[in-house]
């Protein structure tokens, strides 16, 4: 008959942690790769409209952003409360859009120049007059691919 003999005390061995740095580095590299830093400070109030059909912006590098909305309170003393256009980090006028587009296009590779996309982040309460003027300016700058930024929802509720 076999005998079960208990020999000595049972000790719990410490977990081998020698591979921990590898794991940490792996996670580190993952986050480094997926991180996008916010390059521009938005200086206008933008509550983008709701929609159900929004598509995900896939190539962020091809996109240029135009923000339109009421200036934030800190800027209202200087710029008033009427909707303003923000390009990069400053408030700009309609006439500056053409230069802005040319400048943004300059930064893209030769192959990507035709794929340039302008993302319009516009406050939902903005009047269409401003939006239309911007659209016309974009047409004149031949930046024809645009995207109206929105938040995707299941159902639209109009206020």
């Amino acid at each position, binding site marked *: 008959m076999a005998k079960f003999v208990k020999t000595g005390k049972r000790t719990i061995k410490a977990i081998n942690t020698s591979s*921990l*740095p590898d794991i*940490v*580095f792996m*996670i*580190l590299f993952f*986050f*480094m790769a*997926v*991180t*996008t*830093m*916010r390059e521009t400070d938005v200086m206008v109030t933008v509550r983008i*409209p*709701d*929609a*159900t*059909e*929004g*598509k*995900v*912006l896939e190539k*962020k590098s091809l*996109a240029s952003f135009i923000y339109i909305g009421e200036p934030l309170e800190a800027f209202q003393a200087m710029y008033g409360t009427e909707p303003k256009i923000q390009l990069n980090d400053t408030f700009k006028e309609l006439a500056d859009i053409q230069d802005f587009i040319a400048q943004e296009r300059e930064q893209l590779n030769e192959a990507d120049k035709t794929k340039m996309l302008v*993302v*319009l982040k*516009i*406050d*939902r*309460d*903005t*009047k*269409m*007059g401003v*939006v*239309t003027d911007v*659209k016309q300016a*974009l*047409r*004149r700058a*031949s*930046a*024809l*691919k*645009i*995207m*109206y*930024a*929105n*938040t*995707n929802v299941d159902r*639209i509720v*109009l*206020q």
Partner: protein
Amino acid sequence: MADIAFLLLIFFLAATTMDSDTGLMRQLPAIPDPNVPQDINKINDRNILEVKVNKDNLLLVEGQLTEFTQLREIAHDFILNANDEPNMPEKEIINIPYFGDVAVTKAVISLQNDIGTKYGVYIAVQNELIAARTELRDELSRREFGVPYERMDEDRKGAIDDYIKVPISEAEPKRIGE
């Protein structure tokens, strides 16, 4: 070493924004060249669904005051023209890969707005029109291939897009209601 790695890791953890931008993709028409004569062939009136949002954010479809909630269905029925009615869009026999010779609708949606229209409402209306078109494409995809439009391969998607083209044009606005 590990400390530095942890430090970096925590920094990137905090700084990462995973959210992605979503939006409605649109193609603006190019500015017409004044030296090139314009296409005189006007689109037949029956093929155009005229959608207008006025300065009071009211919706007019073909001049009729319409509830926002009805828009999707109206656009859907207009594009489909199931009974080939004479006041609804014409159809044209075109050969499309995967489908063969099929009757393709010539429908066009024209979206107009006033200067005083609210952007949010305008986008909501545009969204409904795009939704109606996507719905029809999805129906077609499910009927023909048994697969939802979203999961279709690019070739077949292109064929479906050709079948149900329905351009949505954003007309030049009228300078009223400032």
